[in-house]
């Protein structure tokens, strides 16, 4: 599994860049395995944001003064960085939003509201995060449209037969996660996108769990819209990205109204700015966007190929070690090449919250619960799972710590 140029990165050096990794939890060194929820932040991101507030802070796009000019430049440079990072054709295809959730709401409540009609079908998958279900339910209810879910096979892989069956001529939107935040499954986005486009449906990709961990190229995938959050990719909270093909963004009405997004306002009405500003009402989270730009610089310096390869190696190792712990049930694909570094599991009859408590005592941070994917939990017929998820700064030694803690939990529960 070791990949040719994996030696080119030094994890010990990378760990030095993350101040939080030096702290202890309950007297133990922190083992942070909750990266699918949010990632930690390197000094570079913290410093760039600090520097922005200390030296260049101003309201962007408005003032004529020097600070406003610097702040605007930094904000627009961040947009350029995002655009290159995901292979967009034009920087104006990048809209800054609060997070992936807001991006999905924007699509459903603007494009959806103007294009979805009574009797239309919206196709989602059973492994979607609530953020890619609830906005569609809202608009489906408003419009009298209905939703169908593509199901998964025993290994957590989307059923191709259902992709073909459910995406039909009545389908207006196909909205799919690129990588599952529970199963880790990487979905065949290009293939699903082709199926959507063949019937003239909009193809929306939730890339919150993929963009942080692998090279994602929006143009190659040919999605019409794509969303992700900065905080899951070493950046700050409160900033996310909506990518939209130029034509789709231009044809979509604004989401929120207010300052920054207008061309002219009169007592009789208003006209909008061009994209992307039409969708960025109010003073934006400039420091956040700049922090995301810094996170992208940091990831680019390591190289997304290396990020992916390192996590693949960890996932392969963890899957093997965890399956040797008696009583573990691991969800999702057995082949690590079909996943991102997310492993949902259960251990005997220990409830996920009890397991999370026991691991916390050992300094290990994992997630437990339904992971904002209740329809998937119902489909799997489990009330909750534990979830370990990795990033570039995690190590095999940390996985060994997890394994001994799981053994300890087995003893505590007399398994």
């Amino acid at each position, binding site marked *: 599994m070791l990949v040719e140029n994996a030696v080119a990165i030094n994890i010990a050096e990378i760990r030095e860049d993350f101040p939080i990794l030096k702290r202890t939890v309950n007297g133990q060194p922190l083992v942070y395995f909750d990266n699918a929820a949010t990632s930690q932040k390197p000094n570079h991101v913290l410093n760039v944001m600090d520097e922005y507030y200390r030296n260049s802070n101003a309201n962007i796009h408005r003032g004529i003064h020097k600070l406003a000019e610097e702040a605007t430049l930094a904000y627009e440079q961040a947009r350029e960085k995002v655009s290159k990072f995901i292979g967009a054709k034009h920087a104006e295809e990048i809209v800054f939003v609060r997070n992936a959730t807001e991006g999905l709401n924007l699509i459903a409540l603007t494009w959806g509201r103007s294009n979805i009609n009574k009797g239309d079908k919206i196709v989602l998958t059973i492994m979607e995060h609530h953020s890619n279900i609830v906005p569609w339910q809202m608009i489906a209810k408003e419009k009298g449209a209905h939703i169908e879910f593509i199901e998964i096979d025993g290994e957590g892989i989307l059923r191709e037969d259902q992709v073909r069956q459910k995406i039909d001529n009545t389908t207006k939107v196909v909205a799919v996660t690129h990588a599952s935040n529970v199963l880790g499954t990487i979905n065949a986005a290009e293939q699903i996108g082709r199926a959507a486009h063949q019937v003239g449906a909009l193809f929306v990709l939730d890339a919150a769990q993929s963009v942080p961990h692998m090279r994602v190229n929006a143009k190659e995938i040919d999605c019409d819209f794509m969303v992700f959050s900065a905080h899951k990719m070493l950046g700050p909270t409160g900033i996310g990205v909506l990518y939209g093909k130029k034509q789709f963004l231009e044809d979509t009405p604004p989401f929120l109204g207010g300052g920054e997004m207008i061309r002219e306002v009169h007592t009789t009405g208003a006209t909008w700015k061009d994209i992307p500003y039409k969708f960025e009402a109010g003073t934006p989270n400039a420091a956040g966007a700049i922090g995301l730009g810094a996170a992208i610089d940091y990831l680019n310096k390591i190289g997304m190929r290396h990020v992916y390869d390192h996590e693949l190696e960890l996932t392969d190792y963890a899957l093997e070690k965890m399956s040797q712990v008696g009583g573990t049930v691991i969800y999702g694909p057995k082949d690590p090449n079909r996943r991102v570094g997310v492993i949902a599991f259960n251990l005997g009859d220990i409830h996920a919250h009890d397991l999370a408590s026991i691991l916390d005592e050992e300094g290990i941070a994992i997630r437990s619960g339904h992971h904002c994917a209740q329809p998937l939990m119902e489909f799997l017929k489990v*009330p909750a799972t534990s979830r370990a998820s990795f990033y570039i700064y995690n190590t095999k030694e940390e996985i060994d710590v997890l394994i001994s803690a799981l053994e300890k939990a087995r003893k*505590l529960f007399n398994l």
Partner: protein
Amino acid sequence: MSSDIYKDIILDYYRHPRNFGDLPDPDVRAKDSNPLCGDVIEMQLRIRDGKIDDLRFKGRGCAISQASASMLTELAKGKTLDDMKALGKGDILNMLGIDPGPTRIKCALLGLKVIKLGVYGYLGQTVTEEVKQLV
């Protein structure tokens, strides 16, 4: 919190819950969940002469929530409704014999909240803020 909370008695009530299931013709049913973690408890009470004559619980969730609810059914049997209204967090901690710590205390209190919802519901009284904030 410390994993000392997983004492044998807690695990015993988790794996072999007492008073689990349905009560024939209950006078009142109450159900609630902890939105944070999805733990669910339902209580069914039979009330005679202002006392809890019999009760059952159902639910799913972590060892703390399920064991605590089951132990509470044993504690509540025969108690007056006023006793049940007076029961508080301290009584639950005494009953469990452990301190689950700040993040898990809500798991331990879910059963208490639900039984109180049942009592207030049976009496036709408004549930107090204190009860609402238990979980």
